[in-house]
């Protein structure tokens, strides 16, 4: 089995691409988590499918920018529908999420099936959005990820304190005169963009794991925001690198699922370390 050096262009593309996705998705996930809206990320991941299908119908090539726009529009529509349902019905949040998730996803599948039967070829591959297709990342994809990822990280970096406080005590921040609704929609939009590029790596089905698991694991280890974000980012990067590496070990290995497997390992480890620390803290408190 031959090994490949780090300067191999394929590997470079894949590493840069997945690290960018891992980093931006996990950090954006911090704020969904703090707002207790992690599950909405799952709904949006699934809701994006019809957006991609429709975008493909308009422009027959698989141009990543066009597909991104389609995905973002679908993501926004899903968000608006969920918000509308929340305001106008007595349904609980988890029911609303389930409804929107399945309805949009089903629409996506219908559109994919229609495309499959009618298109003049080169269309198979839209279903790769279900599980991601890291091996097929091109330079164009990586440029796009860099652009979007950098923008997301910038926004989060600047506004993280505000987002944090608003997630903690919405009413108080309103009384201080902050535009809470506006900031919350920025967080939503960042989530949608992170998901739209993230599904290229891990696919629709596993995307929400990339949003939730890094921050959930970090939360088991700390309660300070700075440390939380640092650990989350590290977990996002490590899982991207680890998953990519593991997928090079043998032929026909999918990358997306391996990234999630690494995350699951990190979550397990964090759980045990967290429990261990609280045990020793307990003992220290007892003795001290």
């Amino acid at each position: 089995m031959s090994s490949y050096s780090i300067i191999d262009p394929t590997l470079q593309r894949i590493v840069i691409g997945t690290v960018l996705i891992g980093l931006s998705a996990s950090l954006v996930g911090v704020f969904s988590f703090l707002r207790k809206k992690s599950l909405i990320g799952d709904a949006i991941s699934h809701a994006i499918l019809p957006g991609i299908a429709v975008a493909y119908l308009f422009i027959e090539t698989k141009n990543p920018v066009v597909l991104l726009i389609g995905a973002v529009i679908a993501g926004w529509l899903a968000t608006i529908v969920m918000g509308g349902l929340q305001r106008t019905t007595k349904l609980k949040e988890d029911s609303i999420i389930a409804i929107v998730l399945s309805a949009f996803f089903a629409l996506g599948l219908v559109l994919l099936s229609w495309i499959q039967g009618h298109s003049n070829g080169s269309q198979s591959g839209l279903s790769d959005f279900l599980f991601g297709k890291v091996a097929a990342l091109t330079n164009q994809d990586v440029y796009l990820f860099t652009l979007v990822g950098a923008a997301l990280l910038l926004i989060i970096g600047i506004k993280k304190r505000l987002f944090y406080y608003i997630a903690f005590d919405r009413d108080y921040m309103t009384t201080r005169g902050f535009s809470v609704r506006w900031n919350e929609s920025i967080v939503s939009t960042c989530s949608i963009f992170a998901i739209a590029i993230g599904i290229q790596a891990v696919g629709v089905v596993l995307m929400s794991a990339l949003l939730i698991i890094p921050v959930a694991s970090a939360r088991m280890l700390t309660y300070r925001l700075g440390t939380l974000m640092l650990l989350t980012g590290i977990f996002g990067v490590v899982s991207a690198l680890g998953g990519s590496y593991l997928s090079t070990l043998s032929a026909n290995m999918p990358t997306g699922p391996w990234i999630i497997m690494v995350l699951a390992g990190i979550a397990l480890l964090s759980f045990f370390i967290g429990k261990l620390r609280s045990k020793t803290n307990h003992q220290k408190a007892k003795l001290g």
Partner: protein
Amino acid sequence: MICCTLLLVFGCKVDSTQQNNERPVVVCSTSIIADNMQAVLGNEFDVRSLMGPGVDPHSYNPRPSDVQLLQNADVIVYNGFHLEGKMADLFHQLAASKPTFAVADYFPENQKISASKTTNVIDPHIWFTPESWLKSIGKVADQLATLYPEKAAGIKQRFELYQKKSVDEMIALKSELSTIPSEQRVLITSHDAFHYFGKYFGIEVRALQGVSTTQEPGVRDVLELVDFIVKRKIKSIFIEHSVSPKSIQAVIESCNSKGHKVNIGGTLYSDALGAQNSDGGTYIEMIRHNITTISTGLK
């Protein structure tokens, strides 16, 4: 109201009996099989294709309208060897109530190629071995002749003409590829559809994805293929009409980064024919197009 309903019911019944008096409907799974069957069965039969031009049979999910078409058919002909990956159960069910033939069942044992070294799965792209394929089509035609003895003579005659014409053409095409130096005589495509093709027409074959398009290429597959292309200095690689070219683009970019310029030599027809008026609208045209494209790309 009752009159209208009754009229509708009886009206429908009249239609179906009319159909029975007309030509028998033969539904073929792929456009390739449909083209062959059309040539052999002529106007005496109503030959239909389930999958249109450019449709990928590996990942094809039958819709309710497809199931209806199959259920209303008189005869069904499909490829077999799991080419129509998601329809195996459906064909099995249909076989219980009407004549259903898999061309693969008549394919000679010694011509079969394994899909991979590790499994017992047979590579289903058997139409790329023209002489054996046509013999198998002939055997399916014989079955139809037995079912419709009044049309048997026409079938036999048309088949012999078609077989001769096709085989003559194929043998002529065989020599086309021999002028490419052996080091570069490698056909690299999106998915592994060309083993039979390579064996018959004398060219080495490699692919990014496995035998089925539903199998994802992994990172290692891309790495190994890029190395191979750069080492052997392959001039062109080929995409397919029915398969997404995205992974191939990634391969090309990596080769270019490594200093070896490789192009897309063209688009080949693999699992389906092209549209009627394209240069790949029939079985013979499709293979001719492939050979021409490959030889131009690699010379």
